[in-house]
């Protein structure tokens, strides 16, 4: 889901940087206000954790594997605003130091994976788990459903961003200047693979990690004070 440089036109890239600027500013303000000095390293650890989650390949029946984004998991563990910062940092490191995701697309990538994914997933998890005990199976199911739905929302958005490129940037002769596929191709392609494969990977990882933490360290699943 990491969008590389060259897929999105300047309008889309600029738009998402403009959209993300107030979100980053607000996240920074909220987290700074609620974050205790003792928890500062936790944010960095959350970012590294999010980075590492994206490197784990999870097996799917049929011999294939896929990797999770872990956005919902980080949001459950740190809260959505802190997750927004942690995932942004992980995405910036991936783009700047490892070339995974474009520099011009950082705004769009952060919007999809650092904002929409953790926030939608976190609130879906909150609604489904609704005041249930930290030990309840409902939390495990809620985490899985939240992971699946949130990842597909983010993938749908990415497909939409690809699909509008030929509408926004096209020469008079009909030559597409950026991503060459319209909504009719980009949206089903992105949604299809996430609905069938990657959504399940995200669901399995999020649910199983919550299940393991319920057994090992249930206190880590309690509401964090980090935003």
């Amino acid at each position: 889901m990491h969008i590389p440089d060259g897929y999105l036109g300047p309008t889309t890239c600029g738009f998402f940087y403009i959209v993300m600027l107030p979100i980053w500013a607000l996240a920074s303000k909220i987290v700074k206000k609620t974050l205790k000095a003792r928890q500062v390293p936790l944010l960095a650890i959350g970012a590294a954790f999010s980075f590492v989650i994206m490197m784990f390949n999870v097996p799917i029946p049929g011999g294939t594997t896929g990797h999770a984004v872990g956005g919902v998991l980080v949001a459950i563990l740190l809260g959505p605003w802190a997750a927004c910062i942690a995932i942004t940092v992980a995405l910036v490191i991936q783009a700047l130091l490892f070339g995974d995701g474009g520099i011009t697309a950082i705004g769009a990538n952060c919007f999809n994976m650092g904002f929409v994914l953790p926030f939608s997933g976190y609130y879906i998890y909150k609604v489904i788990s609704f005041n249930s005990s930290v030990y309840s199976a409902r939390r495990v199911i809620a985490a899985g459903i939240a992971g699946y739905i949130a990842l597909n929302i983010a993938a749908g958005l990415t497909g939409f961003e690809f699909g509008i490129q030929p509408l926004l940037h096209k020469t008079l002769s009909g030559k597409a200047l950026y991503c060459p596929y319209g909504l009719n191709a980009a949206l089903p392609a992105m949604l299809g693979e996430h609905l069938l494969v990657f959504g399940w990977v995200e669901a399995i990882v999020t649910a199983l990690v919550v299940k393991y933490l319920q057994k090992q360290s249930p206190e880590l699943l309690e509401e964090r004070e980090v935003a």
Partner: protein
Amino acid sequence: MKKNNFVERSILGTLSFLKESIFADEYALKKGFLQSLDPRIKTIIFLIFILQILFTGNIFVLLYLYALCLLLTFISKISLGFFLKRTWVFIPLFSFFIAIPAIFSIFTPGEALVVFQIANFKFIITRQGLSSASLFVARVITSVSFGVLLSITTKHFELLKVLRIFRIPQIFVMTLGMCYRYIYLFIEVIQNTYLGIKSRCGNVFSVKKGQGIVAWNIASLWQRSYVLHQDVYDAMLSRGYTGESKTMDEFHATFKDWFWLGLTILIFGLSLWQNHYLN
């Protein structure tokens, strides 16, 4: 290696990825052209190049920018073989395969260039489709090459320090700097954990067991991380941390840096003009 041994593939893939990154830092230490520039000015120069690529709608302008990137690679004493392998293997090759259907009339209608038939299906390659797909691949490869070139010719901690100088909020830069170090630590923890699992359980896992192992690894990593953050904070306190972090600015821009920045802006202006003229 067995096909279903995904955990080992994951770990080995991650390690080789990180080794490559450490190897890249070796290039940043070489005495080449880009390595000699002030990291702040160099970052601005590269951002201008990447923006230029984004705004360019002409494949010839993109090709000359790509040639310029290869020239910069050469004069920065980076092995062209290493650079081409690093920049072509993942994203551009993937983009190339993605672009192939776009050359056909099904996705990009237009003037027919080549018409052929396979079984009962008629395929038409259009001029617009071929042109769009070539432009798309050329843009991706050029952008990725510039991005990677910046990353491998700049020490990673310098690149992170540049962000602070660009007035990125402190909480992001501080998190970035610390996170970068934890990534290596975490990979080591996972590698050791996996080695432990392998020595006790052997190599082959079922899909279900494999999912459990990955999830357990992630959960255990978070548990350890949570404990670690308290130790890290105590270490920070003992070194005089008062809630505000300080970054040292040791960069010095010289006439050479300003000259190259001026030249880049000139090239940017010229290519914008050329792009407008050619389109």
